């Protein structure tokens, strides 16, 4: 087992354990802190998957900004740890059952490798070269190698995806105005 797989295993275990603890804590504050822990573990995994910029954004935006917003609201509402049963009466069975079924269906994906993905997508007989089926992957790696991590992601973001990028700014403005209108007592 090489060192990358080992590190991936450590981060994956960290993420799954934190997520499980996050779902099962009674106090909303500790749930939020364990979710932050999950997000940090995921940021580590993003670095292993050659997405260093997204890893930085994950820590800054998700673990930083979004979770601080959650903590603000929890403390503003002064929500105590839940008294009585943590779960809805029927929820325990339904929740775990649905999660197990869904997880079992999705876990089939663990058998995927680049080779198998290429074999299934291409119309050619089995044993096709993945680099012929996915030329964009090699092109992206070359762009990252020549222009750095941020340069590699900036070029498609501000050319091919410029319109969606601008629309996001409108979305964020609408969300900010909506949040103010909803949360204010009287306008």
């Amino acid at each position, binding site marked *: 087992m090489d060192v990358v797989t080992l590190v991936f295993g450590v981060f994956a275990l960290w993420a799954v354990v934190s997520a499980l603890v996050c779902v099962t804590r009674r106090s909303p504050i500790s749930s939020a802190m364990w979710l932050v822990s999950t997000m940090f573990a995921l940021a580590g995994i993003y670095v292993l998957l050659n997405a260093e910029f997204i890893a930085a*954004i*994950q820590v800054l935006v998700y673990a930083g900004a979004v979770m601080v917003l959650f903590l603000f609201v929890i403390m503003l509402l002064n929500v105590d740890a839940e008294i009585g049963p943590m779960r809805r009466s029927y929820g325990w069975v339904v929740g775990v059952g*649905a999660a197990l079924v*869904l*997880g079992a269906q999705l876990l089939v994906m663990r058998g995927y490798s680049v080779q198998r993905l290429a074999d299934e997508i291409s119309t050619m007989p089995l044993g096709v070269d993945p680099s012929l089926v996915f030329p964009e992957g090699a092109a992206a790696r070359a762009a990252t190698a020549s222009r750095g991590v941020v340069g590699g992601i900036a070029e498609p973001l501000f050319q091919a995806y410029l319109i969606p990028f601008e629309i996001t700014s409108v*979305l964020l403005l609408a969300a900010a105005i*909506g949040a103010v209108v909803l949360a204010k007592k009287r306008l």
Partner: protein
Amino acid sequence: MLLGPSLALSAVLFAIGVAGVLIRRNAIVLFMCIELMLNAVNLTFIALAQVHGMSGQIMVFFVMTVAAAEAAVGLAIILAIFRHTQTVDLTQLNLLKG
């Protein structure tokens, strides 16, 4: 590459998020479970971005933006609900129940 293990990890995290949404009663914790599910999907995008090029990473960028907007609006709604009912317990918010 770690394609298979990443997809498996995202499947596990997504299932945990679904279980949380179905089990928990606290509206804020429910929101956190939705964030967990979004994170699981982001992991899928990043894993496949290694094969398919940068589009996956850019999609993660947009998912994060939408998640931030959703958190802001959703938490404002929870705040407004709390002001009316003094609770965020979903079992007690049954006004529309027949």
